[in-house]
């Protein structure tokens, strides 16, 4: 995305490194860079997460609002993804430049979370046909350091985990219009189950091998990437090829296996860490942006 100029020797160096399973920063082909994240840092949201994967910086805010359900699905709530590629992330994103990428990421997320098995939207319904919760997931890309899709999906999952949906009860229906009561206790809230929420794993093809979590230099060398959305159970909810290269059928199958094993592990560790953070309680010291 940024103006990265690599010489032929640099590209060859990266290619050889990938072949020998020893990349520029010492990682193997299946290793991911360190991730630092924190949830619940934006005060005006119902859930939020700030995630930093090496140089990629993502901020996600989840807001819950009351809305009428879609006529086709009166017993379900809704979830909408909006991505904003900030111009700070890359000069290419200035003005309308980042719009195509943003639309792409939000579509992939929407497809990954579309299945009813992933997110139980029926829990978000308050009164069928009349009121439901709609989750607005707003993603802000602050910096791009390679591997954008993966970082965004992890941040979204973490933000949804930390989302506190207020408890709303319906009291008597007064003349056709239901009365909604919000609980008096501001800390009383229901949580969304993200047990089945997927994480995106993108594998970039460099030479004959696929690498996970590519740096911008490696992305420059790769002809194409495969994006897999992997649930904790190892199912694929969305698969996409990105970039202008082509794949052999056997390479795709091998990449799928690799992605599933990595995806399951990432999901596992992510949930572990989120639960650890949760146990620290409400009184934990918030570090915010001084990561």
């Amino acid at each position, binding site marked *: 995305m940024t103006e990265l100029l690599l010489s032929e020797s640099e590209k060859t160096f990266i290619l050889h490194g990938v072949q020998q399973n020893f990349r520029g920063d010492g990682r193997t082909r299946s290793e991911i860079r360190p991730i630092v994240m924190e949830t619940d840092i934006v005060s005006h949201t119902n859930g939020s997460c700030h995630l930093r994967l090496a140089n990629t910086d993502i901020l996600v805010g989840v807001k819950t609002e009351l809305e009428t359900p879609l006529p086709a699905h009166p017993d379900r709530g809704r979830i909408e993804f909006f991505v904003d590629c900030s111009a700070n992330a890359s000069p290419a994103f200035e003005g309308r430049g980042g719009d195509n990428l943003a*639309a792409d990421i939000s579509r992939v997320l929407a497809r990954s979370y579309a299945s009813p098995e992933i997110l139980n939207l029926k829990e978000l319904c308050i009164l069928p046909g009349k009121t439901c919760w709609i989750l607005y997931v707003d993603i802000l890309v602050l910096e791009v350091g390679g591997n954008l899709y993966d970082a965004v999906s992890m941040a979204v999952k973490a933000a949804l985990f930390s989302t506190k949906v207020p408890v709303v009860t319906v009291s008597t229906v007064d003349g056709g219009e239901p009365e909604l009561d919000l609980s008096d206790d501001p800390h009383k809230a229901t949580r969304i189950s993200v047990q089945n929420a997927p994480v995106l794993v993108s594998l970039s093809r460099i030479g004959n091998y696929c690498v996970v979590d590519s740096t911008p230099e490696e992305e420059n060398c790769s002809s194409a990437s495969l994006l897999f959305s992997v649930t904790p159970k190892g199912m694929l909810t969305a698969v996409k090829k990105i970039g202008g290269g082509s794949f052999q059928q056997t390479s795709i199958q091998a990449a799928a296996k690799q992605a599933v094993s990595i995806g399951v592990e990432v999901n596992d560790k992510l949930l572990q860490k989120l639960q650890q953070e949760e146990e620290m309680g409400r009184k934990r010291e918030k570090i915010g942006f001084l990561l």
Partner: protein
Amino acid sequence: MPGVDLYRNTGPEGSVDYKIYQEKEDKNLEKRTDRKDHELRKMFLKTGVISHAKGSAFIEVGDTKVEVGVYGPREIPKRSDFSMKGILSCEMKFAPFACSTRRGHQRDSEEIELGLLLKECLESTVRMNLYPKSCIDIFVTVLEDGGGVLAAAITATGMALADAQIDMYDNLVGSCISVNQGRFLADPSLDEEVSCSDAGHEQGNITIGYLNTSEQVVCLFSQGVLSSTSMDTALN
């Protein structure tokens, strides 16, 4: 707000498709009545349908009708896009009456995504190094969605590019498979594609763009929940 149409009078916002109030008839999807699981629907392909375009193609597969027009190679409109390799631009649009529910006139995010997907699919197919400093524009219009739209669009685009006499590495075809409860249905119709996935079983669709002779997959797109073994079998 993205997709807000400022130039057209789009009609009242609160309108709703009447079909949601209809009793949903339980379509029997246990068995295909008109063909076997691995059989494709009858296809009609014609090139040269748009007289103004350099190349064009029309494809009709079952109920799905897609039209593609190729313009170019022509001069790059913006100097800033100068490239010795040539650029491809691909736009996909569903006609408002194409699907069961009416679509707007502006391109929504699904159409933008499919357009980008098609463009990336063509980047390995078209010999862009033979068209420096030029751009090739491809416009895809879906006239009716009867299932397997992306696959039909890929096939039609390959034909339209051939009709426009643009050099390519290989024949491009698109194909689509729907996985439903362990059954692999080739070239699914709309019902089979969108069958209700409330139950816990696997249900999904995979579309690929394929180069025949060199056996390369240039486009891969999937929706729904699948296990990796199903994906393997479906690709085969």
